[in-house]
């Protein structure tokens, strides 16, 4: 019959319209009336059994991001000590496919390298969000941020993030990646426990070289304990303000124009 295809096609549109409303009413919390309200907007879920409309009204509504979502890298620092996790080992810069990470390793007065970055840049206009840096970082110092709203009016320097702009506290990372954070913390604790156990054993075994090693190990935490205030102050004083835990309205480093 001529025209049957058109009627069928219009039927699809009608069915979609109806399905959207029925799905919305049947769902608790509903797509519109009871979506999760956050300062960033409504977060929407798309369960596999949802019917009807698949589009959302960005920017009023946003999708709920999965934990593994990756966008632009961020640098972590320890909230308690204020210390950067990064040791400027350069693995992220080497593994970066578009070579958008630039690191200057810090040096002391004698010109000896210190394991921390004095400058750290990521050119977000070149970054391809592959996540290799986060994947291969041996110190869990660089992770992928979830903040994708980073439009600026200029590419340079607007999209070139320096260390201050990239730095976020570990608590921010923990809130984005709860399960990865838990796993990493557990692994760290296990490693520390193992190290502590080995340290005790080594001390008991005797021998000059072995004796020296545990001594060093006990010395290290001591330094750590009294260090934060002084070393932090002389290393990078301007960072202290910038490293205040970000509030809810600007959770991300750099570029956030909200």
């Amino acid at each position, binding site marked *: 019959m*001529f025209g*049957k*295809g*058109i009627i*069928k*096609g219009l039927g*699809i*549109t009608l069915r*979609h319209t109806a399905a959207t409303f029925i799905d919305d009413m049947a769902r608790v919390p509903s797509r519109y009336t009871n979506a999760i309200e956050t300062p960033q907007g409504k977060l929407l879920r*798309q369960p*596999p*059994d949802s019917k009807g409309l*698949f*589009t959302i009204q960005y920017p009023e509504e946003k999708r709920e*991001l*999965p*934990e*593994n*979502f*990756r966008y632009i890298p961020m640098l972590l620092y320890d909230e308690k000590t204020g210390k950067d996790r990064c040791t*400027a080992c*350069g*693995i992220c*810069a*080497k*593994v*970066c*496919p578009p*070579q958008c*990470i*630039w*690191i*200057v*390793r810090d040096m002391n007065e004698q010109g000896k*390298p210190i394991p921390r970055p004095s*400058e750290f*840049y990521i*050119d977000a206009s070149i970054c*391809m*969000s*592959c*996540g*290799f840096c986060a*994947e*291969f970082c041996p110190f869990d110092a660089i992770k*992928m941020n979830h903040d994708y709203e980073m439009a600026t009016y200029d590419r*340079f320097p607007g999209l*070139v993030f*320096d260390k201050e702009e990239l730095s976020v506290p570990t608590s921010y990372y923990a809130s984005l990646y709860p399960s990865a954070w838990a796993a990493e913390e557990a692994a760290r604790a296990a490693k520390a426990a193992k190290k502590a156990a080995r340290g005790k054993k080594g001390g008991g075994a005797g021998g000059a070289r072995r004796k020296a090693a545990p001594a060093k190990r006990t010395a290290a935490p001591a330094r750590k304990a009294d260090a934060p205030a002084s070393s932090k102050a002389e290393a990078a004083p301007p960072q202290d303000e910038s490293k205040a835990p970000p509030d809810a309205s600007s959770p991300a480093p750099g570029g956030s124009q909200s």
Partner: protein
Amino acid sequence: MTESVVTTSSLPFADAVPGAVLDADQWGIIVNPDKLVELAQYLRDHEGFDYLSSLTAVDYLGFKDRTADDRFEIVYHLFDTKKGGDGIVLKVRLPESKPEVDSLVKVYPGADLQEREAYDLYGIKFKGHPRLRRILLWEGFHGHPMRKDWKEPYYEAEHKPYKSRWPVGHYQWAEDRVPWGDNINYPKGFDPDAFEPAPLPMPIIHEPPEGSDHIHTERIVVNMGPQHPSTHGVFRMIVALDGETIVGLEPEVGYLHRNHEKLGERNTWLGNIPFTDRLDYLSSMSNNFGYVLAVEKLLGDKGKPPERAEYLRVIMAEFTRIVNHMWAIGFLLNDLGAFFTPALYAIEERELILDLFEAAAGSRMMCNYMRFGGVVRDVDEDWLRKARDIVFNRLDRKVDEFDEYLTGNEILMARCVGVGLLSAEDAIALSACGPMLRASGVPYDLRRARPYSIYDRFEFDVVTDDGCDVYARYKVRLGEIRQSIRILKQALDQIPEGPIMNGKPAYVTRVQKGEAYGAVEGPKGELGFYVVSDGSDNPWRYHVRAPSYINLNTLEHMTIGYKVADSVVILGAIDIVLGETDR
């Protein structure tokens, strides 16, 4: 693909064409350039190697044991579409002074675009090629960029990682480095004011047959594209029209060209994985898959992925196929004039599948999920539950909906049945692949012809159709979605627990010296990666056998004699993605 050791004496056809085979090793047969056409003809007619899959060149400047006399190598991968199995690799070595070889277009018309690409990027002259012009770059481009001695503007170093990034990596904005200083080459005596661009390439005119009831009208040449909504990106068809009938067509590509292969040679082995995402950006999982398979051949046992990783790869690849075919069908409706609403309905389920990709890989389209010897991240029970939910409860329903509303639709049939005919012989000869080939009735699917990964464990059918037209291509795609769902159901049921990576993830890949061609049956066809390693951290050669590009061989053949409006549908049914075509 010839992994076994081959010697000249073990080749059954070594004496068929006297003097043709010079030498053979585990990676290919070295052929005398003067006898190449003769040998190819023999192989096609008597040995069954009827399908020229990949043709590419390699520059061995500075390679160990190579001199100027055998600087260039042209590599031909031939396969048998009837028997399947490993094909053979022919190689022709050419001197630096005279890089010329006979064109294979007469034996394998599918060599057309690939020979033009090799000419464009390497400057190899193919004698007897009907239109040996640049294809990816513009006429007037200086030099041949894939040659090892060609340097790009902003050239920094031969290989990544660059030394300037660490440990003293003071940021430098690329644009601040004077681009026109010492970083660019002008040809000797070049005068920009006197530069005359090359004339527009004109399509070869195919006169309509004598005696047809044809009214002769004025011939006009129309440029469709590069900015045209029907061309799926920046693609240009130069169409010669007689009235509304197409009498000649010339595809013009390269607007998105970024020399992916040169980037690949600069990059590390691992660094290329995210770049493959950007080839066919609708099916990045398949692209990852093809590339890691090729490199894993060179890695040997180190590169063998564990069971669970194999399953995850197959699951992702089949999801990708579904996503891609949904797009293809949706866009076919777009090309027919049903602008976007049906296309958006067609890709609803894609949204859910991309959510799965995002949860597993971190990104919806640029997945970067596979690694040498495994995959990057495991999926949890929740992910599998969602995936099962989609596969078992939703996708079948969606395909049935397509079937119900589209397969018998009179508009779709009026526009698609009998349009863009491509016979089985032509499809094979023109190196068409994927749904294009199978819609011409050739049951050639790499998952069956040369099973890779764990595809030999699953039950599925190779979908073919004898229609040879756009409608058949639509039906094949629909059928392939059904088969992919079938594979997914089995894979999601059988997926074992276990590790997802062979050994510890390492950012430096130790690849042994050698060559490998790894290919997968991507959604668009045979997606092959030909890699050559000199044992270092970067590939010596990295070539992509791009199905979108090679399928364009068939475009001219299919459109001649049809109306100009049909060319849009015919192009849509090839299903090209310009990111892959232009590379």
